[in-house]
C-alpha cells in the first residue's frame, strides 16, 4: 500500500515539474525559477530541498536543450566559456553562502530574495528582443581581445546574421551575480544572464538565449557538489523533478513555436507574478514580519499580482502600439 502511495506522490511531483518546465520555457525564465515556488508553496517542501532539486533539473534541462541549440550552431560556445569564469566563481560564493543561511536558520531571506528575483525578472523577460537588430554598435577593445564576434543562420529571416559583442568586462560583472544567485537559489538566473549578454554586451537575443542555456548547466554543476555534500539534495524529489522539468521544457518549447498571439505569454507572466508575490509574502511570514492567515494571504497575493501584471500589460502594449505607428 505504501508503495502505491509513494508512486502516486512521485507522479504528483513529476506533474509539478512538468508544469514548472512548461511555464519556465514559455516565459524564458527557466524551469527552476518556477519549480521552487511550486514545491515550497503547494507541496510543502522545505526550500532547502526545493532548491537542491531545482539545481539538478536545471542541469538536466540545460543539457537537454543546449544539445539541440548547439547543434544548430546558434549558441556561441566561446563567449559562453569566457563568461563562465565569472558565473562559476559566483556559484561557489552563492552555494557557500547558502550553507551559512541554513546554519543560522535564515531561510526567510531565501524566500524573500526568491520573490524579488522572480518579480524583477518579469520586466526584462517581457522586454526581450525589443531592440533586436536595431542597435548597431562600434566594437570596443574587448571585442577584439576576447574575439566577441560570430554569425548564425536565422531561419525566419532566411539569412546569415553576423554580430559583434562589446563591454566584456561589464558582462563578467553581471555574470558573477547571476552565478551567485544561481548558487543561492538553485536556479539558472536566466534574466540576469539576459541582462548581461543582451543589454551589456549587445548580443542578439537568439545567441544570448541559446548561449545562456548552455551556460546554466556549467554554473549549476558547480553548486551541485556543495549542495550534495551538505545534504541539500533529496533523491526522491530530485529524481521526480528532473524527469518532470525536462518533459515540461520539451513541451514548452513546442508550445512556444506555435504561439503566434503574444497575449498568450501574458497568462504565463501573470502566473509568474503571483508566484513571486507569494514567495515574498512567505519570506516575510517566515521572518515573522507579518502574520496573515492563509485565505486572506491568497487574496492579497492575487490582488497585488493582478495589479502588477495589468499595469505592466497596459504599459507594454501601449508602448508597442505607439512603436508601430511611428
Amino acid at each position, binding site marked *: 500500500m505504501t508503495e502505491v502511495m509513494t508512486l502516486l506522490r512521485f507522479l504528483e511531483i513529476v506533474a509539478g515539474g512538468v508544469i514548472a518546465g512548461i511555464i519556465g520555457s514559455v516565459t524564458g525564465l527557466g524551469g527552476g525559477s518556477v519549480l521552487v515556488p511550486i514545491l515550497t508553496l503547494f507541496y510543502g517542501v522545505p526550500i532547502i530541498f526545493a532548491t537542491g532539486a531545482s539545481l539538478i533539473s536545471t542541469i538536466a534541462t540545460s543539457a537537454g536543450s543546449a544539445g*539541440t541549440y548547439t547543434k544548430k550552431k546558434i549558441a556561441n560556445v566561446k563567449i559562453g566559456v569566457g563568461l563562465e569564469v565569472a558565473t562559476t566563481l559566483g*556559484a561557489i560564493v552563492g552555494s557557500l553562502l547558502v550553507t551559512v543561511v541554513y546554519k543560522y536558520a535564515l531561510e526567510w531571506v531565501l524566500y524573500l530574495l526568491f520573490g524579488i528575483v522572480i518579480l524583477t525578472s518579469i520586466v526584462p523577460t517581457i522586454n526581450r528582443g525589443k531592440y533586436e537588430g536595431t542597435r548597431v554598435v562600434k566594437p570596443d577593445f574587448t571585442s577584439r581581445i576576447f574575439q566577441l564576434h560570430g554569425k548564425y543562420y536565422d531561419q525566419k529571416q532566411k539569412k546569415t546574421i553576423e554580430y559583434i559583442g562589446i563591454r566584456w568586462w561589464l558582462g563578467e560583472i553581471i555574470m558573477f551575480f547571476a552565478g551567485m544567485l544561481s548558487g543561492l537559489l538553485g536556479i539558472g538566473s536566466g534574466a540576469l544572464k539576459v541582462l548581461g549578454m543582451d543589454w551589456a554586451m549587445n548580443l542578439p537575443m537568439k545567441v544570448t538565449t541559446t548561449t545562456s542555456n548552455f551556460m546554466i548547466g556549467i554554473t549549476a554543476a558547480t553548486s551541485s557538489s556543495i549542495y*550534495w555534500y551538505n545534504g541539500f539534495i533529496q533523491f526522491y524529489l*530530485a529524481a521526480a523533478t528532473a524527469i518532470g522539468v525536462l518533459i515540461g521544457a520539451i513541451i514548452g518549447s513546442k508550445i512556444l513555436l506555435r504561439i503566434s498571439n503574444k497575449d498568450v505569454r501574458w497568462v504565463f507572466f501573470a502566473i509568474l507574478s503571483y508566484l513571486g508575490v507569494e514567495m515574498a509574502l512567505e519570506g516575510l511570514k517566515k521572518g515573522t514580519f507579518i502574520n496573515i492567515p492563509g485565505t486572506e494571504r491568497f487574496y492579497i497575493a492575487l490582488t497585488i499580482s493582478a495589479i502588477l501584471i495589468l499595469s505592466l500589460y497596459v504599459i507594454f502594449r501601449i508602448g508597442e502600439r505607439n512603436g508601430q505607428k511611428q
Partner: protein
Amino acid sequence: MDKNNEDLTRVISITLRAAVIISMFFIVAGAALIMIKGGGDGHTISEISSYNYNSNTTLRSNLVPLSNLPAGIFHLDGIYFIALGLWVLIFTPVIVLISAVVDFVVSKNYLYVLLSAIVLTNLVVAIFYIGPYLHLTS
C-alpha cells in the same frame, strides 16, 4: 578557426544529449527499483520519500556514501542508480569543458585555453574539494 569551432559545437552537442539520456535512464530505473524493492540502501520507502528536513531518518544526499556506488549498482540498489544518474549530470559540464580546452589548444587560441582552464579549475575545485571538505567539517 571557424571549422574547429564547429567541431567543438558538435562534440558538445553529442556529449550533452548522450549525458541526459544516460542519466534519465539511471534515474527512472532507480525510482522503479525503489518502488519494486520497497526501499534501497537500508532505507525504507517512507524514509526515502520523506522531505521532513528536521528528521534524522530523511534520506538526504550526504547520507549516501559515493564510495559505495559501484557495489550499489552491482546489487541493483535503486538509491545508487539515482545517485549515478545525478552524478552523470553533475559531471557532464566537466567533460564539456575538457573538450573546450582541447579544442582551443588545437586552434592555438591561447587566451581561450586560459579562460576555459580557469572555468574547469573552478568547477573541479568546487566538485572535488570544496564539497567533500564541507562534508568533513560538518
